[in-house]
């Protein structure tokens, strides 16, 4: 029965795990208890994802849109796109160091996606031709550099506070 505790999010377990384990041990085992705990764990996961990360994902999407827009409108000069990837990557890296890879990749994705969109729309719009999709892989460098520099700073700050 105690293994069921593992179904709950880590943060929830850190907060309630010990007392929950006591009451779980005192509850008669059975399908009803298992169902109740599974339902509780699902509920805890839903509430966990609702808090904070939604805002973070919305901000990440907004920043990715900015990167995509810069990629389409500053095609003669890669510096604004690189600068945006560095700055946004850094900010998200500081905020959630453990998710640096994810943030960097999401921001980088805006470059090939906007490039592909521009290629597709080239017949209808005169966007001046964004960098070809394959060449945009180079944008991974500033995105991940920013994200991991931010993550290093974020980890450093957390360690200093601890």
């Amino acid at each position, binding site marked *: 029965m105690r293994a069921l505790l593992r179904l709950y999010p880590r943060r929830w377990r850190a907060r309630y795990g010990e007392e929950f384990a*006591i009451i779980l041990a005192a509850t008669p085992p059975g399908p009803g*208890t298992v169902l109740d705990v599974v339902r509780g764990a699902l509920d805890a996961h839903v*509430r966990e994802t609702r808090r904070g990360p939604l805002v973070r994902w919305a901000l990440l999407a907004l920043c990715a849109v900015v990167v995509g827009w810069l990629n389409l409108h500053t095609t003669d000069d890669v510096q604004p796109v690189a600068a945006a990837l560095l700055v946004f990557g850094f900010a998200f890296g500081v905020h959630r160091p453990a998710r640096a890879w994810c943030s960097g990749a999401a921001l980088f994705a805006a470059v090939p996606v906007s490039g592909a969109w521009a290629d597709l729309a080239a017949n209808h719009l005169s966007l001046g031709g964004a960098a070809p999709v394959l060449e945009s892989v180079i944008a991974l460098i500033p995105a991940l550099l920013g994200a991991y520099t931010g993550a290093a700073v974020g980890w450093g700050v957390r360690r200093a506070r601890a």
Partner: protein
Amino acid sequence: MKQTEGIGGLGRFAEPAVLVLVSVADQPKHGYAIAADVERLSGVRLGPGTLYGAIARLEERGLIEPVPSEDRRRPYRLTPPGAEALRGHLELLERVTTAGRRRLARA
């Protein structure tokens, strides 16, 4: 708070939450004592998942709070906003109960 959202805006999760609030209204209790008290009071046996779902929600909304304790079983007590929310909910239930009794008597 809109009454349609239930106590503390808990909606469909309000029922176990109300039972937990009533249970800790007189004195702090830990999870196991709350479950036993609720069962004695209402005949409802709250499973561990339901009980701690309610406790987590109530604590998140500041309606209950843990009492510092050496014991691994942390007791919870009602906060002033929790007392206010419970009072409002019980008044609503009382109005509904009174109206229900009156209508049944006329039927």
